[in-house]
């Protein structure tokens, strides 16, 4: 197909980079925001703006909440298609329940998985979810959307497109193409070391865009590679469900053997049994961790088959001081509190896998590393965006002469996925402050309204992008870029102002009190607004006095 290897790699980089770049913009941007997803939750749900708490008493505080939890209407609606017959009013038989804390979350996430009678497939469970205040057990209203961990984060790994897991597949393919783009980019880049620190904004747009594309791609290359790679490893079970299909027999045999070896029952006994004091088990677990020199907080607490003789309680240590996620699991017999098993130290392969997944999922406590991750993510966004800009800049004059609209289409898509996406995110946060506390009857939940606002604002930005990129078809700069930068500048100031007006938590107060989740979010938005304003002014100057083009020279320099 090509004259040589380098040309084939350059072709791959250009075309697959372009098409999947639109998806990767979303993945990188919302991935960067997700580093501080729980802090964004605090901003979006003012009732949760208090300090993170340790796991509270199971016996006194959590148990009554668990007993009260039932699946909500949306879970029931999703389950209707998977049963033969009606769903019961109240679900009674619990398969598994649990709670998890993080060092960044003041509120506690609880889940209860109930057995579903008359289910078509065995082992089907329906889940009840609730978020509570760990200081007193009061529940957060169900209609609140955790904009960070409940929307931006899923948008990052699945585009919130859940039908047949298609969103996961699109993101997965985009991640693989990111790896392809990184490798082909290195192969194409002839002077990778010599030009490592090169950025020449005063030269032609093509040159400065390419310089920035190379700079942001190369300096954070290990970051970009590892995040795309570990993202794939995390969801490998979705992309290659080998052990649940072709090798299911091997998997099931191993499960039975493992259940015997670990002493953790695989099935319920069918015999009722009480639940002993879980607080005593937690205390024992913490004593054992301390005895090993690894004193720590509880990260995850789960009970399998509560109320059954085969029930067991699993307690995991929060992994805040290292990359691996929760670990050091200790398991107790639920009915008596006797120790069943202390998880042995992980094998080498398990440690490698935990390192890879933990590096991506970031349960560690390290504020500098988190901000460096945001820098990495935004560098990735800059790399992809400058890729688009270079693509359009290189072709728009040629396309104008040929009467082709190709460059304009790409520019419109680029505006939509770069500035349009930021406008949508800010628009959602503004809507979060403007919507009434409880939606009137007949309207969708407040959380759903916020999602609709996000998509609506993005659609509007897309329409604006299509309309205002007409000059690209004549080889000129599109005004859409400057206009959307101005929109970002306005919204980036409006959101913190609305936060102040609606909650009283203005920057002087949050900074003075050291309440960084909200202060940080406000400051980040204001900084973004400032950058957008500078960009808009630059673009205005460019529109009036375009930078000279040395097209022939560019062609010679770049494959």
């Amino acid at each position, binding site marked *: 197909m090509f004259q040589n290897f380098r040309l084939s790699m350059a072709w791959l980089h250009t075309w697959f980079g372009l098409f999947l770049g639109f998806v990767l913009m979303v993945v990188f941007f919302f991935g960067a925001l997700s580093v501080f997803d729980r802090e964004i939750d605090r901003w979006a749900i003012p009732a949760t703006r208090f300090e993170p708490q340790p796991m509270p008493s199971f016996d006194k505080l959590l148990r009554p909440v668990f007993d009260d939890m039932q699946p909500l209407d949306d879970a029931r609606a999703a389950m209707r298609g998977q049963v033969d017959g009606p769903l019961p009013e109240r679900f009674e038989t619990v398969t598994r329940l649990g709670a998890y804390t993080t060092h960044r979350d003041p509120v506690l996430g609880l889940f209860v998985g109930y057995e579903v009678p008359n289910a078509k497939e065995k082992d089907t469970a329906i889940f009840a979810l609730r978020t509570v205040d760990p200081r007193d057990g009061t529940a957060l209203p169900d209609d609140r959307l955790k904009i960070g961990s409940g929307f931006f984060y899923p948008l990052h790994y699945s585009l919130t497109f859940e039908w047949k897991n298609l969103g996961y597949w699109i993101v997965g393919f985009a991640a693989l193409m990111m790896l392809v783009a990184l490798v082909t980019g290195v192969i194409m880049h002839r002077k990778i070391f010599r030009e490592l620190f*090169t950025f*020449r904004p005063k030269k032609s747009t093509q040159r400065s865009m390419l310089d920035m594309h190379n700079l942001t791609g190369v300096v954070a290359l*290990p970051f970009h590679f590892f995040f795309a790679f570990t993202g794939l490893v995390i969801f490998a079970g979705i992309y290659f469900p080998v052990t649940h299909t072709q090798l299911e027999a091997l998997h099931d045999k191993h499960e039975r053997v493992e259940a015997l070896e670990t002493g953790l029952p695989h099935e319920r006994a069918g015999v009722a049994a009480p639940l002993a004091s879980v607080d005593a088990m937690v205390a024992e677990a913490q004593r054992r961790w301390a005895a090993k020199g690894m004193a720590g907080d509880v990260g995850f607490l789960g009970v399998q088959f509560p109320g059954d003789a085969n029930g067991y309680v699993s307690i995991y240590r929060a992994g805040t001081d*290292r990359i691996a996620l929760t670990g050091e699991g200790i398991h107790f017999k639920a009915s008596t509190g006797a120790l069943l098993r202390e998880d042995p130290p992980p094998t080498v392969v398990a440690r490698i896998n935990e390192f890879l997944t933990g*590096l991506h999922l970031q349960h560690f406590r390290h504020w500098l*590393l988190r901000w*460096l991750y945001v*820098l*990495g993510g935004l560098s990735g966004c800059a790399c992809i965006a400058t890729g688009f800009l270079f693509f359009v800049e290189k072709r728009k004059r040629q396309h104008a002469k040929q009467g082709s609209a190709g460059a304009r289409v790409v520019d419109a898509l680029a505006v939509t996925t770069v500035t349009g996406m930021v406008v949508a995110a800010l628009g959602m946060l503004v809507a979060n402050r403007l919507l009434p506390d409880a939606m009137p009857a007949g309207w969708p939940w407040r959380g759903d309204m916020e999602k609709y606002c996000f998509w609506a604002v993005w659609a509007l930005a897309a329409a604006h992008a299509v309309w205002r990129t007409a000059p690209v078809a004549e080889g000129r700069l599109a005004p859409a870029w400057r206009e959307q930068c101005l929109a970002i500048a306005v919204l980036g100031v409006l959101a913190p102002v609305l936060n102040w007006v609606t909650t009283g938590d203005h920057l002087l107060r949050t900074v003075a009190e050291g309440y960084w989740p909200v202060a940080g979010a406000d400051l980040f938005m204001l900084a973004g607004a400032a950058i957008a304003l500078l960009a808009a002014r630059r673009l205005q100057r460019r529109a009036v006095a375009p930078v000279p083009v040395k097209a022939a020279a560019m062609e010679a320099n770049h494959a």
Partner: protein
Amino acid sequence: MRDALMLLAALAACTAGMGWFALSLEAHWTQVRGKALPSPALVAGLRWLGGAAMAMALGLCLLVDSASIAVLVWLMALAAAALAIAFTLTWRARMLGVLVFWAERQVPDGSGA
């Protein structure tokens, strides 16, 4: 507080290291120090300095956190440092002169100081 200072020192070491690496490249040396090209000995010396600074940064990171976290902090700090040096070279190149303060700055007519 001690940890914060050590991490700050690590960031500074990474930045200095990247700066020395950049200065070992012809194009950037001339940006910072004028027309004359650095001698091969100087180029090698700058790269050694750069490497040493980055190694010291890794050591500092390891003093603060467990190995798994320290390595990541170090790699990300290197990326941030490289970006900082690149932007400094673009807009305030002469500032990097402080890293090679011992080398004479060549005046444009080619004569040494």
